[in-house]
Every structure is written in structure tokens, then in C-alpha cells.
């Protein structure tokens, strides 16, 4: 998961999962996988779903 920018670390005894994914389905799947790998552990799924909407602004570079 690390290669996809998703990280897991222990915080106050719970497994904290962070990162960004494109869909809610992937966010839930990551939480499920972590829970499956660590039965009985508290899993806090803080993975964010990237907003895929079109941008509202532009940048004039040159």
C-alpha cells in the first residue's frame, strides 16, 4: 500500500490508515484489508477520497 501513498501506523494503540485514493470503494477496501491483517485491532480509516471534480481556477504560468 505504501507504493500507492497509503500508510499505516500505530497511534494510541490503534492502527491509523492515511492517504488518498480516487474512490470510496477503494477507501473502504483498504480499511477492510487492514482489519483483516490485524484481527481484533482498532482500525481508524483516515484515508481521503480525492475530489475528482474539474478545477475551478487556472494558473497563468507565462
Amino acid at each position, binding site marked *: 500500500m505504501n*507504493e*500507492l*501513498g497509503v500508510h499505516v501506523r500505530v497511534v494510541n494503540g490503534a492502527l491509523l490508515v492515511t*492517504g*488518498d485514493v*480516487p*474512490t470510496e*470503494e*477503494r477507501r473502504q477496501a483498504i480499511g477492510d484489508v487492514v482489519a483483516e491483517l490485524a484481527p481484533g485491532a482498532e482500525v481508524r480509516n483516515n484515508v481521503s477520497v*480525492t*475530489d*475528482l*471534480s*474539474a*478545477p475551478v481556477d*487556472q*494558473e*497563468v*504560468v*507565462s
Partner: protein
Amino acid sequence: MIRVAAVGDIHLGADSAGTLRPHLDDLDERADLLCIAGDLTRHGDPQEAAVLADELAGLPVPVVCVLGNHDYHSDCEDLVRKVLEEAELTVLEGERVTLEINGTSVGVAGTKGFGGGFPGAAGSDFGEPEMKAFVRHSKNLAAALQTQLAALDTDVRIALTHFSPVEETLRGERLEIWPFLGAYYLAEAIDTAGADLALHGHAHAGSEKGVTPGGVPVRNVAQPVLQHAYKVYCLGGDGADSCESV
């Protein structure tokens, strides 16, 4: 004025059908060209590339992309490229493409690039064969980028890579992994050949804006950084604040 939409690290999987295209249907109202800075797929599976090809097929603007490290993971990068090219996407690896947009010529030179690090904290072409191969691979890709950029005789020139040419756009990533996120050889190539904009991805937790030592604007367009489907950069105008198409 050329409006360049850019994004990287979209990481489409077999379950991604229909997730990207709805946000691109009006792209021609916002941009003249779409550049994708690698990591198009999750694991470099040609089936994932087929999902991307379907998502981008028939877009109203040209699409130019480079592959990223994820697109090599299944050792099927040639097939991934073939699938994308069959959908009329342009894939660059040590190559360039020239487009004519609204009377302005636009050149894009691209490579995946590779790691190696940055001045004072870089790998060197020394010692074990594996270390020399690592560094030489990075140098060779940067040299190809330089050659292709220098060969562009266009009004606007864009360098498109997956790995970063500068440290500035890696801020937010752990310092320890910066040598695996980019290499200064890319910045040297860009500065030597010249470019109006350098686009890269790979650093999901990095920062959007940077600049090469020679003054070329660098933008990290990894989707987790942009937090949008893409970002639009306007080039070749008169310096006005607006970004209207010609």
C-alpha cells in the same frame, strides 16, 4: 495562449471504469491539451490500461502522457503503451511530439525519469554494478529528455516526466525518500535545453509549485496534490491574468 490541463498518478484499476470520464467531457471548454504525468495504472496491468483507454477515448483535446513506475510493475509496459496508443493517446519515453493548437505550436518532450536524488544527497555512478546501473538509468533518461527538448522548435515547450526534477515540489514527502522521488539530472536537462513548463507526478504528498535552478516553472500534478481531476496551466500568452483561449 495555450491552456494545458495536467494530472498524474490517476492509478486507474480494473474497477475504475466510469470514474474519470464524467469529469473530462467538457475539457475542451477549459483546455487545449491534456498531459498525464505517469502512473496511469495501479500495477501496469494491460487490463487497467484498457480501462484508461476507454475513459480517454475520443476526448475533444489531444492527450500526451508518460508512463510511471506503477505502469512498469507487471513488466508489461510495452503492452500498456500499445493499448494506450490504440486509443490514439500519445505516449512519450525519450520522445517528443509537436502539436498545432490555435495557431500556436506546442512541443512536449517526455520521459518517465527516475530517482537518484539531489545535490548534496544524490547517488553516484560508483561502486557496485547495481548502484551504477541505478544512476546510469536515471542519467540516460534525463539525457534523452534533454535531446528531445532541444530538438523542439515550437512556440511553447513542455517537459513531461513522472519523477521530479526538483526538491521543492517534494516538500511534504519524507525527506528520507526524496532520492527515490526524483533526480537533479532532470532539472539539468530541462535547464540546458530550455522549457516553458515542467510537469511531473509521483510525489503524492508533495507540493504543487517549484522552479528549476535555471528558472523553469515546475508543477507537481499528482492527483492527490491537486485534489481535482486536473489543473489548467496557461502558457504563451501576454502575461495577462486571464486564461482565455485564442
